[in-house]
Protein backbone atom coordinates (compact mmCIF):
# COMPACT_ATOMS: atom_id res chain seq x y z
CA UNK A 1 0.00 0.00 0.00
CA UNK A 2 2.66 2.51 1.07
CA UNK A 3 4.97 1.30 -1.72
CA UNK A 4 2.18 1.95 -4.23
CA UNK A 5 1.81 5.49 -2.90
CA UNK A 6 5.55 6.15 -3.23
CA UNK A 7 5.53 4.78 -6.79
CA UNK A 8 2.67 7.12 -7.70
CA UNK A 9 4.43 10.07 -6.11
CA UNK A 10 7.58 9.38 -8.17
CA UNK A 11 5.87 9.83 -11.52
CA UNK A 12 5.60 13.43 -12.93
CA UNK A 13 1.99 13.99 -11.80
CA UNK A 14 2.92 12.86 -8.30
CA UNK A 15 5.92 15.19 -8.18
CA UNK A 16 3.68 18.09 -9.20
CA UNK A 17 1.23 17.13 -6.43
CA UNK A 18 4.09 17.04 -3.90
CA UNK A 19 5.23 20.44 -5.17
CA UNK A 20 1.73 21.92 -4.79
CA UNK A 21 1.34 20.54 -1.27
CA UNK A 22 4.78 21.86 -0.29
CA UNK A 23 4.00 25.30 -1.74
CA UNK A 24 0.63 25.42 0.02
CA UNK A 25 2.15 24.55 3.42
CA UNK A 26 5.06 26.95 2.90
CA UNK A 27 2.85 29.87 1.88
CA UNK A 28 0.44 29.20 4.75
CA UNK A 29 3.38 29.28 7.17
CA UNK A 30 4.77 32.43 5.55
CA UNK A 31 1.35 34.09 5.74
CA UNK A 32 1.05 33.07 9.39
CA UNK A 33 4.40 34.66 10.20
CA UNK A 34 3.42 37.73 8.16
CA UNK A 35 0.23 38.05 10.23
CA UNK A 36 2.16 38.02 13.50
CA UNK A 37 4.22 40.97 12.27
CA UNK A 38 1.19 43.16 11.51
CA UNK A 39 0.13 45.94 13.82
CA UNK A 40 -3.04 45.01 15.67
CA UNK A 41 -6.33 46.72 15.00
CA UNK A 42 -6.95 49.62 17.34
CA UNK A 43 -10.28 50.92 18.67
CA UNK A 44 -9.73 54.08 16.60
CA UNK A 45 -9.07 52.62 13.13
CA UNK A 46 -5.67 53.46 11.59
CA UNK A 47 -4.68 55.63 14.52
CA UNK A 48 -2.07 57.96 12.97
CA UNK A 49 1.00 58.31 15.19
CA UNK A 50 2.78 60.26 12.45
CA UNK A 51 0.12 63.00 12.42
CA UNK A 52 0.33 63.45 16.18
CA UNK A 53 4.13 63.56 16.11
CA UNK A 54 4.00 66.03 13.19
CA UNK A 55 1.95 68.40 15.36
CA UNK A 56 4.87 68.39 17.79
CA UNK A 57 3.15 66.43 20.55
CA UNK A 58 5.76 64.81 22.81
CA UNK A 59 5.64 61.05 23.47
CA UNK A 60 5.33 61.78 27.20
CA UNK A 61 2.18 63.84 26.72
CA UNK A 62 0.10 60.76 25.87
CA UNK A 63 2.34 58.17 27.56
CA UNK A 64 3.36 60.02 30.75
CA UNK A 65 4.00 56.86 32.78
CA UNK A 66 7.26 56.25 30.93
CA UNK A 67 9.14 58.83 33.01
CA UNK A 68 7.44 57.95 36.30
CA UNK A 69 6.96 54.23 36.59
CA UNK A 70 7.03 50.78 35.07
CA UNK A 71 4.28 51.22 32.45
CA UNK A 72 4.21 54.03 29.89
CA UNK A 73 0.42 53.85 29.77
CA UNK A 74 -2.05 54.30 26.95
CA UNK A 75 -4.14 57.50 26.94
CA UNK A 76 -7.70 57.55 28.17
CA UNK A 77 -10.40 59.14 26.05
CA UNK A 78 -10.44 62.24 28.24
CA UNK A 79 -6.82 62.93 27.36
CA UNK A 80 -7.64 62.58 23.64
CA UNK A 81 -10.69 64.77 24.10
CA UNK A 82 -8.73 67.64 25.62
CA UNK A 83 -7.36 68.37 22.16
CA UNK A 84 -9.94 66.69 19.96
CA UNK A 85 -12.96 68.63 21.22
CA UNK A 86 -11.35 71.74 19.73
CA UNK A 87 -10.82 70.18 16.31
CA UNK A 88 -13.40 70.27 13.54
CA UNK A 89 -12.12 66.94 12.19
CA UNK A 90 -13.40 65.15 15.29
CA UNK A 91 -16.92 66.00 14.11
CA UNK A 92 -16.33 65.35 10.40
CA UNK A 93 -14.23 62.19 10.36
CA UNK A 94 -15.96 58.81 10.57
CA UNK A 95 -12.71 57.26 11.81
CA UNK A 96 -12.96 59.34 14.97
CA UNK A 97 -16.51 58.14 15.71
CA UNK A 98 -15.28 55.55 18.29
CA UNK A 99 -13.62 58.39 20.25
CA UNK A 100 -16.83 60.45 20.26
CA UNK A 101 -18.83 57.41 21.39
CA UNK A 102 -16.32 56.62 24.13
CA UNK A 103 -16.55 60.17 25.46
CA UNK A 104 -20.37 60.27 25.31
CA UNK A 105 -20.85 56.82 26.86
CA UNK A 106 -18.00 57.17 29.34
CA UNK A 107 -16.59 53.82 28.24
CA UNK A 108 -12.83 53.38 27.94
CA UNK A 109 -11.00 53.13 24.63
CA UNK A 110 -9.43 49.70 24.68
CA UNK A 111 -6.08 50.30 23.00
CA UNK A 112 -4.17 47.18 22.04
CA UNK A 113 -0.55 47.38 23.25
CA UNK A 114 2.00 46.66 20.53
CA UNK A 115 5.30 46.58 22.43
CA UNK A 116 4.73 43.84 24.97
CA UNK A 117 6.97 41.56 27.01
CA UNK A 118 5.97 38.19 28.53
CA UNK A 119 4.63 37.98 32.08
CA UNK A 120 7.95 36.66 33.41
CA UNK A 121 9.76 39.83 32.34
CA UNK A 122 9.48 42.80 34.68
CA UNK A 123 10.20 45.87 32.60
CA UNK A 124 10.46 49.36 34.06
CA UNK A 125 10.21 52.34 31.70
CA UNK A 126 11.36 54.86 34.29
CA UNK A 127 14.81 53.33 34.74
CA UNK A 128 15.39 53.29 30.99
CA UNK A 129 14.24 56.89 30.45
CA UNK A 130 16.34 58.01 33.44
CA UNK A 131 19.36 56.24 31.92
CA UNK A 132 19.02 58.54 28.92
CA UNK A 133 17.44 56.13 26.45
CA UNK A 134 15.13 57.82 23.98
CA UNK A 135 11.73 56.33 23.11
CA UNK A 136 12.65 55.78 19.46
CA UNK A 137 15.68 53.66 20.32
CA UNK A 138 13.33 50.79 21.21
CA UNK A 139 10.01 51.78 19.66
CA UNK A 140 11.22 53.15 16.32
CA UNK A 141 10.49 56.47 14.67
CA UNK A 142 6.81 57.19 15.32
CA UNK A 143 6.82 60.02 12.76
CA UNK A 144 6.94 57.34 10.05
CA UNK A 145 4.17 54.94 11.15
CA UNK A 146 0.44 55.06 11.74
CA UNK A 147 -0.29 52.30 14.28
CA UNK A 148 2.86 51.62 16.30
CA UNK A 149 5.17 48.90 14.99
CA UNK A 150 8.03 47.10 16.65
CA UNK A 151 11.18 47.87 14.69
CA UNK A 152 12.88 44.78 16.16
CA UNK A 153 12.09 41.54 17.94
CA UNK A 154 12.09 42.37 21.64
CA UNK A 155 13.93 39.32 22.98
CA UNK A 156 16.44 38.82 25.77
CA UNK A 157 19.49 38.95 23.52
CA UNK A 158 18.44 42.38 22.34
CA UNK A 159 17.91 43.57 25.92
CA UNK A 160 21.24 42.16 27.11
CA UNK A 161 23.26 43.61 24.22
CA UNK A 162 22.15 47.07 25.23
CA UNK A 163 22.62 46.35 28.95
CA UNK A 164 26.20 45.16 28.46
CA UNK A 165 26.96 48.14 26.23
CA UNK A 166 25.49 50.53 28.80
CA UNK A 167 27.58 49.03 31.61
CA UNK A 168 30.85 49.50 29.73
CA UNK A 169 33.85 49.03 32.01
CA UNK A 170 31.84 49.55 35.21
CA UNK A 171 31.94 46.08 36.83
CA UNK A 172 29.35 46.87 39.50
CA UNK A 173 26.92 48.16 36.89
CA UNK A 174 27.57 45.13 34.69
CA UNK A 175 26.73 42.77 37.58
CA UNK A 176 23.49 44.65 38.22
CA UNK A 177 22.51 44.90 34.55
CA UNK A 178 23.29 41.28 33.67
CA UNK A 179 21.73 39.80 36.83
CA UNK A 180 18.79 37.46 36.16
CA UNK A 181 16.92 38.97 39.12
CA UNK A 182 16.97 42.45 37.58
CA UNK A 183 14.22 41.49 35.12
CA UNK A 184 12.95 38.03 36.09
CA UNK A 185 11.10 37.55 39.38
Amino acid at each position, binding site marked *: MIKKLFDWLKQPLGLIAVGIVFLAVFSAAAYGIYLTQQSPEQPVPEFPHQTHVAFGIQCLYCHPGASKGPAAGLPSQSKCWACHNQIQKTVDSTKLAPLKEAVINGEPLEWVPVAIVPDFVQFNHRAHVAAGRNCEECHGDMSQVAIAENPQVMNMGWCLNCHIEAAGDDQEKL*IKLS*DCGTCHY
Partner: protein
Amino acid sequence: MDMKISEIKMSTEEVGKWGMVIDQDLCTGCQACVAACAMENNLSFVGEEDAGYGRSMHWIRIERFWEGEYPEVKMTPNQPMMCQQCGSAPCEPVCPAFATVHSNAESLNLQVYNRCVGTRYCANNCPYQVRSFNWRDYERPEPLPNQLNPDVTVRRRGVMEKCTFCIQRIHKAQDKAKSEGREVMDGEFTTACAQACPASAITFGRTDQPESLVSHLMHQGHGVKHLEDLGTLPNVTYFKGG
Protein backbone atom coordinates in the same frame (compact mmCIF):
# COMPACT_ATOMS: atom_id res chain seq x y z
CA MET B 1 37.63 25.48 36.74
CA ASP B 2 40.55 24.31 38.82
CA MET B 3 38.76 24.89 42.11
CA LYS B 4 39.22 22.28 44.77
CA ILE B 5 36.16 21.13 46.68
CA SER B 6 37.63 22.32 49.97
CA GLU B 7 38.00 25.83 48.56
CA ILE B 8 34.36 25.95 47.51
CA LYS B 9 33.18 24.67 50.86
CA MET B 10 35.20 27.04 52.97
CA SER B 11 33.68 30.26 51.64
CA THR B 12 32.34 31.05 55.11
CA GLU B 13 33.33 34.70 55.05
CA GLU B 14 30.76 35.82 52.51
CA VAL B 15 28.59 38.70 53.63
CA GLY B 16 25.01 38.68 52.38
CA LYS B 17 23.18 41.80 51.41
CA TRP B 18 19.61 41.28 52.59
CA GLY B 19 18.80 39.42 55.76
CA MET B 20 16.03 38.60 58.15
CA VAL B 21 15.78 38.19 61.90
CA ILE B 22 12.91 36.14 63.34
CA ASP B 23 12.10 36.28 67.04
CA GLN B 24 10.37 33.01 67.87
CA ASP B 25 9.42 34.30 71.34
CA LEU B 26 7.24 36.95 69.71
CA CYS B 27 5.73 34.66 67.06
CA THR B 28 2.22 33.56 68.01
CA GLY B 29 1.81 31.27 65.02
CA CYS B 30 -1.15 33.28 63.72
CA GLN B 31 -0.29 32.55 60.05
CA ALA B 32 -0.73 36.19 59.00
CA CYS B 33 2.65 36.03 57.27
CA VAL B 34 1.61 32.92 55.35
CA ALA B 35 -1.53 34.66 54.07
CA ALA B 36 0.29 37.92 53.29
CA CYS B 37 2.99 36.05 51.38
CA ALA B 38 0.43 34.17 49.32
CA MET B 39 -1.33 37.42 48.41
CA GLU B 40 1.84 39.33 47.60
CA ASN B 41 3.47 36.64 45.51
CA ASN B 42 0.51 35.26 43.51
CA LEU B 43 0.66 31.85 45.14
CA SER B 44 -1.79 29.23 43.94
CA PHE B 45 -4.30 27.49 46.16
CA VAL B 46 -3.84 23.82 45.49
CA GLY B 47 -7.06 22.57 47.06
CA GLU B 48 -7.78 19.74 49.42
CA GLU B 49 -6.80 16.82 47.23
CA ASP B 50 -3.38 18.05 46.17
CA ALA B 51 -2.66 19.28 49.68
CA GLY B 52 -3.25 15.67 50.74
CA TYR B 53 -0.47 14.63 48.38
CA GLY B 54 1.83 17.14 50.08
CA ARG B 55 1.71 19.56 47.19
CA SER B 56 0.71 22.62 49.20
CA MET B 57 2.32 25.77 47.93
CA HIS B 58 3.64 28.11 50.56
CA TRP B 59 6.75 30.25 50.45
CA ILE B 60 6.63 30.58 54.24
CA ARG B 61 5.24 28.13 56.76
CA ILE B 62 5.00 27.99 60.54
CA GLU B 63 6.71 24.90 61.86
CA ARG B 64 5.89 23.32 65.22
CA PHE B 65 7.76 20.51 66.89
CA TRP B 66 7.09 18.43 69.94
CA GLU B 67 9.64 17.58 72.59
CA GLY B 68 9.47 14.61 74.96
CA GLU B 69 7.43 11.40 75.15
CA TYR B 70 3.65 11.16 75.26
CA PRO B 71 2.18 12.32 78.47
CA GLU B 72 4.92 14.93 78.96
CA VAL B 73 4.91 16.52 75.53
CA LYS B 74 6.17 20.04 75.32
CA MET B 75 5.60 22.17 72.27
CA THR B 76 8.54 24.16 70.95
CA PRO B 77 8.03 27.80 69.92
CA ASN B 78 6.50 28.47 66.50
CA GLN B 79 9.14 28.61 63.84
CA PRO B 80 8.42 30.51 60.62
CA MET B 81 10.43 28.83 57.87
CA MET B 82 11.09 30.27 54.45
CA CYS B 83 13.93 30.24 51.93
CA GLN B 84 17.04 31.15 53.91
CA GLN B 85 18.65 32.79 50.85
CA CYS B 86 21.83 30.81 51.51
CA GLY B 87 25.13 32.39 50.61
CA SER B 88 26.28 28.96 49.46
CA ALA B 89 23.01 27.37 48.46
CA PRO B 90 22.68 23.60 47.95
CA CYS B 91 19.85 24.15 45.45
CA GLU B 92 21.98 26.13 43.00
CA PRO B 93 24.66 23.73 41.75
CA VAL B 94 22.19 20.88 41.12
CA CYS B 95 20.00 22.72 38.63
CA PRO B 96 20.69 21.36 35.14
CA ALA B 97 18.99 24.34 33.49
CA PHE B 98 20.70 27.09 35.55
CA ALA B 99 17.24 28.25 36.58
CA THR B 100 18.14 28.71 40.22
CA VAL B 101 21.13 31.01 40.16
CA HIS B 102 22.79 33.27 42.69
CA SER B 103 22.17 36.96 42.22
CA ASN B 104 25.49 38.75 42.56
CA ALA B 105 23.75 42.10 42.62
CA GLU B 106 21.35 41.38 45.50
CA SER B 107 23.04 38.30 47.08
CA LEU B 108 19.83 36.31 46.83
CA ASN B 109 18.96 32.91 45.41
CA LEU B 110 16.94 33.53 42.31
CA GLN B 111 14.40 31.28 40.68
CA VAL B 112 14.15 32.11 36.98
CA TYR B 113 10.75 30.74 36.04
CA ASN B 114 11.23 30.93 32.29
CA ARG B 115 14.38 28.81 32.53
CA CYS B 116 12.96 26.21 34.92
CA VAL B 117 12.12 22.91 33.27
CA GLY B 118 10.80 21.27 36.44
CA THR B 119 13.39 18.62 37.26
CA ARG B 120 12.81 19.32 41.00
CA TYR B 121 16.47 18.62 41.83
CA CYS B 122 16.65 21.89 43.75
CA ALA B 123 13.73 21.05 46.03
CA ASN B 124 15.21 17.64 46.75
CA ASN B 125 18.54 19.19 47.64
CA CYS B 126 17.15 21.97 49.81
CA PRO B 127 17.83 21.10 53.47
CA TYR B 128 15.12 23.54 54.60
CA GLN B 129 12.39 22.02 52.38
CA VAL B 130 11.09 25.43 51.40
CA ARG B 131 10.65 25.07 47.66
CA SER B 132 7.27 24.29 46.18
CA PHE B 133 6.46 22.92 42.79
CA ASN B 134 3.55 23.78 40.49
CA TRP B 135 2.12 20.33 39.87
CA ARG B 136 -0.79 21.78 37.92
CA ASP B 137 -2.12 25.04 36.55
CA TYR B 138 -4.31 25.72 39.55
CA GLU B 139 -7.56 27.45 38.76
CA ARG B 140 -8.25 30.96 40.00
CA PRO B 141 -12.01 31.47 39.79
CA GLU B 142 -13.32 34.98 39.14
CA PRO B 143 -12.84 37.49 40.69
CA LEU B 144 -9.60 36.11 42.20
CA PRO B 145 -7.43 37.03 39.18
CA ASN B 146 -8.11 40.68 40.03
CA GLN B 147 -6.01 40.44 43.17
CA LEU B 148 -2.89 39.16 41.39
CA ASN B 149 0.18 41.28 42.02
CA PRO B 150 1.27 42.70 38.65
CA ASP B 151 4.89 42.96 39.83
CA VAL B 152 5.21 39.20 40.26
CA THR B 153 5.12 36.54 37.56
CA VAL B 154 2.15 34.18 37.62
CA ARG B 155 3.85 30.79 37.52
CA ARG B 156 2.69 28.02 35.27
CA ARG B 157 2.59 24.27 35.67
CA GLY B 158 5.94 22.51 35.89
CA VAL B 159 7.84 25.37 37.49
CA MET B 160 9.57 25.43 40.85
CA GLU B 161 9.12 28.46 43.08
CA LYS B 162 10.24 29.76 46.46
CA CYS B 163 10.53 32.81 48.67
CA THR B 164 12.33 35.67 46.91
CA PHE B 165 12.66 37.98 49.95
CA CYS B 166 10.03 40.01 48.05
CA ILE B 167 12.56 41.01 45.39
CA GLN B 168 9.83 43.02 43.65
CA ARG B 169 9.65 45.27 46.72
CA ILE B 170 13.45 45.53 46.82
CA HIS B 171 13.47 46.67 43.19
CA LYS B 172 10.58 49.06 43.76
CA ALA B 173 12.31 50.67 46.73
CA GLN B 174 15.61 50.89 44.84
CA ASP B 175 13.86 52.43 41.85
CA LYS B 176 12.08 54.99 44.02
CA ALA B 177 15.27 55.86 45.88
CA LYS B 178 17.18 56.26 42.63
CA SER B 179 14.50 58.50 41.15
CA GLU B 180 14.85 60.72 44.22
CA GLY B 181 18.65 60.59 44.05
CA ARG B 182 19.32 58.87 47.37
CA GLU B 183 20.09 55.45 48.82
CA VAL B 184 17.43 53.05 50.10
CA MET B 185 16.85 53.83 53.77
CA ASP B 186 16.64 51.18 56.47
CA GLY B 187 13.01 50.37 57.24
CA GLU B 188 11.76 52.18 54.14
CA PHE B 189 10.19 48.98 52.91
CA THR B 190 9.89 45.45 54.18
CA THR B 191 8.76 42.05 52.99
CA ALA B 192 5.08 41.08 52.92
CA CYS B 193 5.51 38.65 55.84
CA ALA B 194 7.29 41.19 58.03
CA GLN B 195 4.72 43.86 57.16
CA ALA B 196 1.81 41.59 58.09
CA CYS B 197 3.28 40.25 61.33
CA PRO B 198 1.16 41.70 64.17
CA ALA B 199 3.81 40.80 66.76
CA SER B 200 6.71 42.29 64.75
CA ALA B 201 8.52 38.99 65.05
CA ILE B 202 10.06 39.36 61.58
CA THR B 203 12.60 42.08 60.80
CA PHE B 204 14.00 42.55 57.33
CA GLY B 205 16.82 44.74 56.11
CA ARG B 206 20.42 45.13 55.00
CA THR B 207 22.82 42.87 56.89
CA ASP B 208 25.86 44.47 55.28
CA GLN B 209 25.08 47.87 56.79
CA PRO B 210 26.12 47.81 60.49
CA GLU B 211 23.68 50.59 61.48
CA SER B 212 20.56 48.85 60.18
CA LEU B 213 18.04 47.40 62.63
CA VAL B 214 18.48 43.89 61.30
CA SER B 215 22.26 44.08 61.80
CA HIS B 216 21.83 45.25 65.40
CA LEU B 217 19.46 42.36 66.13
CA MET B 218 21.66 39.84 64.33
CA HIS B 219 24.68 40.65 66.45
CA GLN B 220 22.90 40.45 69.80
CA GLY B 221 24.63 37.16 70.41
CA HIS B 222 22.08 34.42 70.95
CA GLY B 223 20.85 34.20 67.37
CA VAL B 224 20.82 30.85 65.62
CA LYS B 225 21.11 30.13 61.93
CA HIS B 226 19.46 26.88 60.99
CA LEU B 227 21.58 23.98 59.70
CA GLU B 228 24.60 26.26 59.60
CA ASP B 229 26.89 23.27 59.96
CA LEU B 230 25.98 22.27 56.40
CA GLY B 231 27.90 25.31 55.22
CA THR B 232 24.89 26.88 53.54
CA LEU B 233 25.52 30.38 54.98
CA PRO B 234 21.84 31.18 55.56
CA ASN B 235 20.75 34.81 55.77
CA VAL B 236 17.94 34.31 58.30
CA THR B 237 18.69 34.46 62.01
CA TYR B 238 16.35 32.93 64.62
CA PHE B 239 16.00 33.90 68.26
CA LYS B 240 14.32 31.88 70.96
CA GLY B 241 14.37 31.73 74.74
CA GLY B 242 16.00 35.14 74.89
